[in-house]
């Protein structure tokens, strides 16, 4: 069995990559991908702890989280498509109708 520490390490690396992308990227689709990374690193943690402590709660919770992520991605991409139709770009820095 893979040690728990490796699981957590994997999750941490994924989380850090996601966070780095979130801060540095301008492209809307890339941002969506980074958010998925964040969510899934958390899912890995949930599943890992669930496996090491014989208890199915964490896996159930991860399933919820995945369903939620799917819905969130659906809404997010829909918004991005609408933005693209309106502005012809998904560069989030150049879309600033609602900020100063």
């Amino acid at each position, binding site marked *: 069995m893979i040690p728990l520490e490796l699981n957590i390490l994997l999750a941490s690396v994924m989380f850090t990559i996601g*966070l780095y992308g*979130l*801060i540095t990227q301008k492209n809307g689709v890339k941002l969506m991908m980074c958010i998925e990374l964040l969510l899934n690193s958390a899912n890995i943690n949930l599943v890992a702890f669930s496996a090491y402590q014989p208890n199915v709660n964490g896996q159930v919770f991860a399933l919820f989280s995945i369903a939620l992520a799917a819905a969130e991605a659906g809404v997010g991409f829909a918004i991005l498509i609408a933005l693209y139709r309106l502005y012809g770009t998904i560069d*989030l820095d150049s879309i600033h109708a*609602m900020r*100063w």
Partner: protein
Amino acid sequence: MYADYAYLIVALPVLAFVLCLFVGWHLPRGGGFITVLATLGGLIISLGILKETYPNQIVHQSMHWFADFNVGILIDPLALVMLLMVTFVVTLIHTYANGYMNGDPGAARYFAEAGLFTAAMLGLVYSDNLLQLFIFWELVGLCSYLLIGFWYRKPSAASAAKKAFLTTRVGDVLFLAGIILLYNNLAALNIPLKPGEYLLQFPVIYANIAQIPPAQLTLIALGILGGAIGKSGQFPLHVWLPDAMEGPTTVSAMIHAATMVTAGVYLVARMFPLFYAAPHGLTAVAAVGAFTALFAATMGLTAFDIKRVLAFSTVSQLGFMMAGLGVGAAVGAAAVGVSIFHLIGHSFFKALLFLCAGSVIHAVNTNDMREMGAVGKYMKWTMYTMLVGSLSLAGFPLFTGFFTKDEIIAKAYEYGVMINFLPYIFLVAAAVLTAIYTFRMWFCVFTGKERSNYGHHESPWVMVGPLVILAVFAFGFGMAAQHDFYSYLDTNFEHYSVNFDELGVIGGHAAEGHEAAGEGEGAGEPWYIKLLPYIISIGGILLAGLFYWDKIKRFDPSQVTGENDPLRRTLLKGYYQHEIFTAWFAETVVYGTSLICNMIDIKLVDGWLNWLSAWILGLAENVRKIQTGVIQNYVSAMLLGIVVLVVVITLAMEVGLV
């Protein structure tokens, strides 16, 4: 048994109001028959109550409302004659309105408002306490506003409605002040109230007037008189009444004959013991009444609008009623009977006159008497019924107006013998003018030549029928009811065992005055005083005829007064009231004051606030830069925060704080 249904007298018109308002436009003629039936129901119940209680019972029902107040019904002779008059006259007016308002797109609204108005007036009349009376009083004011402004698309009607509402409001404020003052004084007495008795109930008020300090009594009386002046169109709050002619003529008949304007007189009559006890209270009433009677009559002489003539006449006749109450200082409680008798008689013939005028206007399509003439050729019924009304108003012998007005003048003479002749002189002069302007109007409208092209047709039966019924009453009521009426109303305050001798001492009315009045019923008047009413009425009518009736015309009005005669101009302009009230007072004084206030408001009050808000806005403009709206910035800040948090917690654990 009828008395158990007394509440229906108000409830039925309210029901009619609701029905007409919501389903009226689905019904023929705006559902006017509902309102007619509702008032007719009130009339039947009132007649039943009269039959049960006549001559010496009263109906008093009351229930607790809140705190020190109650709602209740008090039907004593004074209220009952008013109820009968209002329901009777208003039933006829509503019937007439079914013809008059036929085809008007707002007919349903008219009948709804008229129903509410009737309910308010009836509720006012049989309220058993002053607070409830005041509520209905305000409701009457509101309905008059709605009805005068019935044709609200016409600017003059809208402004007349506003004027009526605001002018009467001045009086109402005084009235409310009077009520509050009265309540405070009564509360200060710590009267031991029996269960079912409340402070502002009329019997309680009557029983405790004597204990209120006289100076307070005078203030209360003046406040209440202020309300009455506003509602009854007495000087100086009479300005709204002639303008109120902008409403449909049926409204004029209802407001200016039978109901609203009589409310003021009724109020003074209802509070008569208080006025009697208040030093100078009745003097003020007499002064206001007598002056208004003459003042309005002179303006009636020169008006060209047929309805304005009648409006001025109403103001003048209300002055007679007020003066009739005011002379109670000399003749005691009999003044109430005298005044209310004129009120009832007046409501018959004035409603008749207004409805006749409406009938004429309906056919001729103008209000201006200069464009009428010879209308009598085509409208026989209207002509003769209006003749009856005019004779009655002018006080022609044997007609109702003769008995009622003559009695007031006779009482004013007694007052003159004992106290002061001024009211008598004013009233006699006003009576002469009444005869003259009434017949000036009648001759102008119905005789002579046609002075313009107008429609030639008699009004439909639904309009003529009420005219005939009213004409019968305008002729015969005075003769038939005279003695019973006085003996019935004179007992009114005996039901509450009001001791007028005691009150008279407080009010400063000499007790010996009563005895003189009691024995000298007519005996003290010299023959020429007795003859005077005949001379006044017949002479006045003849004088009007000499000027305006082509058959016996001897003079031309232009021989007496030229175009530029200052007196004629003054009268025509209504004593320059418009110039004084509107042009000078409103547009110069009030407008100037408001300009200054406006400047202070804008520069000082608003200026300070605007500076403050501008400063805060400027501050916010800088602070809002923190909110970039860029997600990356927020995430970085969050990350930074977490790092700091982690570092702090770790350090704290190292040190051992946690």
